[in-house]
C-alpha cells in the first residue's frame, strides 16, 4: 500500500465508508451485475476496471442512486441503506464526476461550486463568504483558479476541477471519477493526479474508473476488475502488472460469438492522407481496401468517432485529403457521403440513429427515401414496405416486428434497423461505430455475422469498437488510435495486450 496514508490510527484509515454486498442487477434479459461485492475505504484510490459491458457503469449508477439493485445491499457507515435516488446518494456523501461536467456556464466558478446551497448571512446570499470559501478550497487542493471567472471561459479540464471541488464542498466522502482523463491532455492529467492525491490525503475515498491502464497504475492504491458482471480480481496496484491487468480484463478465449472472416485482398477504395481536425485528430493517413474489415481500436477520446464523422461529412476536417476509388473526395455533408456510397452507423443509436416516433419501415428506408419517391415526389408506401421487408430479411429481423413503432423494439432489434437502413444504400464503404454497444449476445452474433458477409461480398468496412476482443476478432487488419493519431497497425490475429498497450501508450519491455 502507498505510504501517503495519513498518520491517523490505522483503524480509522482502513475504515470502510461504503460497502457493496452481493449487488445484482439485470436489464431485460441481460444480467449486468451478478453478485458484486466491494469495499471503499477512507483515504484510498481504487481503480475500477473492466471492458465495455463488464458492468462498471451499472455499478456506478447504483452507487450514485440513479439505479437500484435487484439484489444485494449497500452499506454506508455500517448501516444498510437504500440509495433510491441521486439526492439520497448525495446526502450520504457519494458524489461522481463524468466526462462532460455539469456546470452553469453563465455563472462564475464560485457560484458553480455552491449552486443550490449558497452561503447566506441573515437570509441573503453572502458573496464574500462564497468567494472566500472557494479560494480556501482551491488553496487546500492546490488549484490555481480565480473563483470570479465565468465558467464559459474555462476549458474542460478546469470544469472538471470545479466538479471535483464541488464534491469537496458538499463534503463528499466517496468521489467516483468516470473516465476523467479521456478529454485531458497529458499535462492536465498530471495536474489532476496531484489533485487526486491531495484528496486522498484528506481521507476521501476515490473510485477511478478508467481504461487507461498506465494511469491506473500510476494513481491507484488498489484495483478492482469486473468482467461480464462479476468481480474477477481485487488486488493492491503494486501487486499487479499492466499485462496481468489486461489478462484479467480480457479473460476468456474468443468463442463462437465471432464469425469467420474471409480475407479478400481487394483494390484500394479509400485513401486518407494527413487528415487533421484541430483538437480531435491530426495527420491521420491510411488506406482502405475492398472486402477488408479495418478495425479501429483505441481508448475513449482517441478521436475515432471524430475521424469517422469527418469521413462521413458530419464535421469536415480542417486539412488533409481523401481519394475515393481514385477520385478526390471532399466530405461536404452526410447527403453527399451517402450519394458517393459511404455509410455510417453512429455510436449512439438513440440520439443519432433512429427517429423513435416513426415506425420501423420508415426508419429502415430513411436513407433511400429519395429513391422511394416517384418522379413527382410522391412517396410510394408500397415500395417502402417491400424494401423494408427485404432489408429486414437481410438483417434477420423477424417479420412480426415490421410495422411496429421503433421505440418498442429491443436494443438489439433497433440496431438491426439502423444496420438495415445503411444496407439499403448499397454502400461501398460502411463505417460502424460501436455497432454492438448495449445489445444482447444473440443479436450481437447476428449483427457481426452480417458484417462479415458484407465484407465478403466486397464492401469495405471500418469497424470501430472499444471492446478489445470484438475489434480483434472482427478485423482483417487493425489500426490503433491514441490521442488523435494512428500509433500502430497490426495484422490480425493479434494479442490483446499488444493492442491495449498501443492504445494506452504503454510500451512493454522485452520479456526476458
Amino acid at each position: 500500500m502507498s505510504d501517503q496514508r495519513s498518520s491517523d490510527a490505522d483503524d480509522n484509515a482502513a475504515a470502510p465508508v461504503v460497502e457493496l454486498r452481493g449487488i445484482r442487477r439485470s436489464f431485460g434479459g441481460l444480467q449486468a451485475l451478478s453478485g458484486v461485492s466491494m469495499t471503499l475505504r477512507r483515504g484510498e484510490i481504487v481503480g475500477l476496471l473492466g471492458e465495455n459491458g463488464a458492468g462498471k457503469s451499472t455499478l456506478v449508477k447504483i452507487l450514485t442512486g440513479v439505479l437500484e439493485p435487484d439484489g444485494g445491499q449497500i452499506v454506508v457507515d455500517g448501516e444498510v441503506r437504500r440509495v433510491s435516488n441521486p439526492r439520497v446518494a448525495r446526502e450520504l456523501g457519494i458524489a461522481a464526476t463524468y466526462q462532460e461536467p455539469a456546470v452553469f456556464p453563465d455563472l462564475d466558478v464560485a457560484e458553480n461550486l455552491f449552486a443550490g446551497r449558497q452561503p447566506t448571512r441573515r437570509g441573503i446570499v453572502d458573496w464574500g463568504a462564497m468567494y472566500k470559501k472557494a479560494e480556501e478550497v482551491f488553496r487546500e487542493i492546490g488549484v490555481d483558479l480565480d473563483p470570479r471567472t465565468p465558467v464559459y471561459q474555462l476549458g474542460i479540464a478546469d470544469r472538471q476541477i470545479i466538479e471535483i471541488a464541488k464534491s469537496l464542498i458538499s463534503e463528499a466522502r466517496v468521489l467516483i471519477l468516470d473516465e476523467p482523463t479521456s478529454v485531458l491532455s497529458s499535462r492536465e492529467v498530471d495536474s489532476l493526479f496531484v489533485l487526486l492525491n491531495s484528496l486522498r490525503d484528506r481521507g476521501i475515498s476515490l473510485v477511478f474508473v478508467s481504461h487507461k491502464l498506465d494511469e491506473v497504475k500510476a494513481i491507484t492504491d488498489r484495483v478492482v476488475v469486473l468482467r461480464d458482471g462479476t468481480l474477477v480480481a481485487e488486488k493492491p496496484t503494486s501487486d499487479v502488472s499492466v499485462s496481468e491487468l489486461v489478462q484479467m480484463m480480457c479473460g476468456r478465449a474468443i468463442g463462437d460469438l465471432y464469425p469467420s472472416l474471409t480475407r479478400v485482398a481487394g483494390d484500394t477504395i479509400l485513401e486518407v492522407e494527413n487528415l487533421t481536425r484541430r483538437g480531435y485528430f491530426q495527420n491521420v493517413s491510411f488506406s482502405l481496401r475492398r472486402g477488408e474489415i479495418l478495425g479501429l481500436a483505441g481508448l475513449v477520446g482517441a478521436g475515432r468517432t471524430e475521424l469517422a464523422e469527418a469521413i462521413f461529412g458530419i464535421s469536415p476536417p480542417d486539412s488533409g485529403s481523401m481519394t475515393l476509388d481514385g477520385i478526390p473526395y471532399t466530405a461536404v455533408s452526410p447527403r453527399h457521403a451517402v450519394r458517393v456510397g459511404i455509410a455510417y452507423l453512429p455510436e449512439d443509436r438513440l440520439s443519432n440513429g433512429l427517429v423513435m416516433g416513426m415506425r420501423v419501415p420508415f426508419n429502415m428506408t430513411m436513407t433511400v427515401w429519395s429513391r422511394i419517391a416517384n418522379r413527382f415526389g410522391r412517396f410510394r408506401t408500397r415500395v417502402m414496405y417491400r424494401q423494408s421487408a427485404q432489408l429486414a430479411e437481410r438483417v434477420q429481423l423477424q417479420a412480426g416486428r415490421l410495422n411496429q413503432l421503433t421505440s418498442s423494439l429491443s436494443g438489439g432489434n433497433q440496431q438491426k434497423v439502423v444496420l438495415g437502413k445503411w444496407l439499403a444504400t448499397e454502400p461501398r464503404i460502411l463505417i460502424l461505430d460501436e455497432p454492438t454497444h448495449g445489445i444482447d449476445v444473440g443479436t450481437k452474433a447476428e449483427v457481426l455475422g452480417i458484417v462479415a458477409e458484407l465484407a465478403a461480398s466486397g464492401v469495405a468496412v471500418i469497424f470501430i469498437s472499444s471492446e478489445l476482443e470484438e475489434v480483434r476478432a472482427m478485423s482483417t487488419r487493425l489500426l490503433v488510435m491514441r490521442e488523435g493519431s494512428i500509433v500502430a497497425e497490426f495484422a490480425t490475429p493479434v494479442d490483446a495486450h499488444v493492442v491495449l498497450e498501443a492504445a494506452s501508450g504503454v510500451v512493454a519491455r522485452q520479456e526476458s
Partner: protein
Amino acid sequence: MIADVALSATRRGRVRSLVRRSDTALIGLIVLITLVATATLSDFRTLSNINNLLNTTALIAIVAIGEAVVILARQIDLSVGAILGICAYLVGSWSGHVSGPFGPVFGVLLALGLGAAFGLGNALLINVFKMPAIIATLATLSIYTGLQIIVNNGSQLYLTQVPKWLAGLRGNAWFGIGTFIWIAVICLIVVTFILRRTRFGRDIYALGSNPDAAVYLGVKIRVRTYQIFALCGALAGLGGLLYTSQFGNVDATAGNGMNLTVIAAAVVGGVSLFGGAGTALSAVLGALLLGEIQNILELTRISIFAEQTLQGAAIVIAVAVYAVVSRRLRRPVRREAFLSDHPTLDTAAIDAAGGASNG
C-alpha cells in the same frame, strides 16, 4: 452591445461578468444619442418632451424588469400587456374605495397582488399542464384580454373615477424627480437585490443556464416557476397602476402591444433569450435606449409608426448578435491542442517502482 469580454484564455478571469461590460457600452450609447439629439433637435430638449419620454420609459422599464426575470429563467411571458391592462382598470376603480392616507398603500398592494395572481395563473399552466411557456402565455394572453374586456364592460374608466392621489401621481415630483422615475428606480434596486442576493435569484440564473443541472442539484423548479411568474405579474400590475395615472382613461385596449415592447427592451438591454445572462439594469437600459430612439423617430417625423418595426428588428438583431458572439466566446469543450510528447511509460519500471508516484 452584448459582449465585450476580454478573450484571454488564462485561468485568472479578468472580467467579473459579461453583462457589466455591455451595460457600460449601453450607457455610453444612450448618453451619446441623448447628446446628439439635444444638440440637433429642438423639439427633443423641451421639458415636456423629456418628461414624457422619462415617464413612458419608466413604465415600460418596470414591466421589462419583470419580463427580464422570466427570460433569465429561460421562460417567456407573452401576457404581461393584458395583466397590465386588467390591473390598470381594477386598481383605478377599486382603490377609490379606500380613502385617506391608506389609499396609495392599498392601491400599490392591490396592483402587486392582482398582477401576481395572474402571473401565478401562467405558472400553473406551465407546471400542472406541462405547457411550454410560449404557448401557455399565448393562451393566457387571450384569456386575460378577454377578462379585460369583461371588466371594462363595454365602457372605460374615466379619469374622474380615479382617486386623486393616483391621478396626480404622474405630475408629482419628489425632490425634483418625477414619481414614476422614483418608482422605477425602486423596482430596479429591489429586483437587482433579489436577483443578486437571494437564493431565489441565484436559482433563476441556474435554471436559465442549465435547467437539468439545476434540477439535479436540488433547485425546486416548480416552486421557482410560480415565484418567477408571480414576480413578473406583480411588476406588470404595478405598471398598470402607473398606466392609469399616465393616461387617465383606461379602456379595454390598455396594454395592447406592450408584450413586444418589453421583450425588446429586455433583449436589447442584454438579457439573453437563452437564459442565464442579464440583469434588471439590462432591462432598464434597453427600455431607455429603445424609448429614446422611438422618441427621436417620432420627433423627426420619420414615422410615428416605426415602433413595432423597431422593436421587432431589435429583437432579431439582438438575438443574432448574442448568438454569434457567445459562440465565439465560449471555449470549445474539447481539449485545445495535443501535446505531441506524451511520455510512454515503461511498464517494468512502473512495476518495479511499486506504483503511484507522488505527483
